[in-house]
């Protein structure tokens, strides 16, 4: 394992300390692992919180700021935060109008978030949860834990965050978040495994010429392993899975995220986006807004995910609203 590390045990706290030093407009409580606005919650605005295992940076702490999250609670690497940590995030985001908690659909995240939401409601805080489950690589059936929450999380957090700024009430903000999730589908391919610092070796073995098709953001194996193929073929298959699951009619407007998993050069991501754009042209679909870069990563995994969200005009308007966070910033 080659990483910039002092000790594997100190990985998370050292990284959070650096995040705090780089972003003085955010409050980083390393002890409770809660990142929030330095000025505290915005009075009169619905709060928006997300949390999950670390290792997916900039998700979620990188999205705390104006127009997006009020607080984030990172857990240990690839491990859901405990209920106490989720609760800390909920309390830090409470501006008196209730809090929407964005949860990625993983067994642990769902359980810990549910416990925290109950604890918060016992304390009089109104909480609504938005579950993100956009990964079409997993069949949603009684034989699985359901679809995983991946790239669409960024879109949900951005758009629900803008709805909260607009003044929507608690149920309306949650509803917007659920609409974005329902309109989004994602699919990922890994070229290499990521390495969890405490494990010290790659999470799975992938031969030099093979790829994992349908990989999850913790390196969970996907649909199958196969030989590496040209990007245009891989993108064709990824989009085939996405659009096969949720067909779009010709002329639909979309937000498309081509997301790096942590170890992929931006040039490769743009190459992938180019293939997406060509494929969209063939299908008479419009990319109304694009986002290309590392947003939901899997440590140092090489690979990418594609997320397609069908965006009606009101969602596009919320997407375009100003946002000022460490990882997403425009209109300010």
């Amino acid at each position: 394992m080659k990483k910039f590390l002092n000790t594997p045990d100190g990985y998370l706290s050292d990284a959070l300390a650096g995040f705090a030093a780089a972003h003085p407009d955010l409050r980083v409580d390393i002890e409770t692992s809660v990142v929030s606005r330095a000025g505290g919650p915005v009075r009169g605005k619905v709060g928006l919180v997300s949390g999950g295992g670390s290792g997916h940076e900039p998700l979620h702490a990188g999205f705390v700021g104006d127009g997006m999250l009020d607080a984030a609670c990172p857990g240990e690497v690839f491990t859901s935060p405990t209920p106490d940590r989720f609760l800390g995030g909920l309390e830090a985001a409470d501006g008196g109008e209730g809090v929407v908690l964005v949860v990625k659909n993983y067994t642990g995240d769902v359980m810990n978030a549910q416990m925290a939401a109950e604890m918060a409601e016992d304390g009089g805080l109104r909480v609504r949860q938005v579950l993100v489950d956009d990964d079409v690589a997993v069949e949603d059936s009684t034989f699985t834990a359901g679809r995983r929450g991946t790239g669409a999380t960024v879109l949900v957090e951005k758009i629900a965050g803008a709805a909260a700024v607009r003044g929507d009430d608690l149920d309306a903000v949650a509803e917007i978040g659920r609409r974005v999730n329902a309109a989004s589908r994602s699919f990922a391919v890994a070229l290499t495994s990521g390495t969890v610092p405490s494990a010290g070796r790659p999470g799975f073995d992938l031969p030099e010429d093979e790829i994992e098709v349908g990989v999850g953001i913790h390196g969970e194996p996907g649909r199958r392993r196969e030989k590496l193929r040209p990007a245009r073929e891989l993108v064709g298959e990824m989009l085939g899975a996405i659009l096969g699951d949720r067909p779009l009619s010709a002329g639909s407007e979309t937000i498309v995220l081509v997301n790096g998993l942590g170890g992929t050069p931006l040039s490769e991501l743009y190459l992938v986006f180019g293939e997406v754009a060509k494929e969209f042209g063939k299908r008479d679909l419009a990319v109304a807004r694009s986002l290309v870069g590392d947003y939901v990563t899997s440590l140092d995994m090489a690979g990418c995910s594609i997320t397609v969200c069908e965006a009606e005009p009101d969602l596009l308007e919320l997407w375009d609203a100003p946002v000022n966070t460490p990882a997403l910033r425009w209109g300010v």
Partner: protein
Amino acid sequence: MDAFTAGQATAWIGTAAKAVAEDKERLTELDAAIGDGDHGANMDRGLGAAREALAALDAAGPGEVLTKTGMTLISKVGGASGPLYGSFFRTTGKNLEGAEPGLAELAAALRAGLEAVQRMGAAQPGDKTMVDALSPAVAALEQAAEKGAALAEAARDAADAAYDGAQATIPLQARKGRASYLGERSIGHEDPGAASAVLIFRSFAEATAT
């Protein structure tokens, strides 16, 4: 009829913390095969914290010890195993009254703990989860209690039943948790949650052997 004491409950958790620490690598490898490779580290962190929390506890009975253990796991572990094992111990503890409950009371409390795990995880036996080891272990304790067996003997039966249950997860296809994403590729691997449940019941047998 011998009783289950706070001292034995504390020894149980201490032994389990040691057993998981020693077997951390194997749990991590099992989890890396069909999950995300953090089960060993998470259980080690959680049980280590529970052992520390118990050192400062002057418990009136074993129920209090197990409740404290559960609360610590919930607040220290995260992931799925935190709420699941946390609820298992917490609910067991809450259902275990008195300073020295007998085997039948202990078996009934563990049954309540198992039910809490199944409720939270919506898991049935055969889904390839920790339930596949916990469930036969609890059943073995109940059977031993009916026969009027001694605690030490019952605990050995439970540990053996947990082991057999965990081994039986190998040919199963996972239906819950991250392993379920693998579909048929989960077949041929022992479930890491069931493997840690074996360590926990073996520790129980060790702590009650006299």
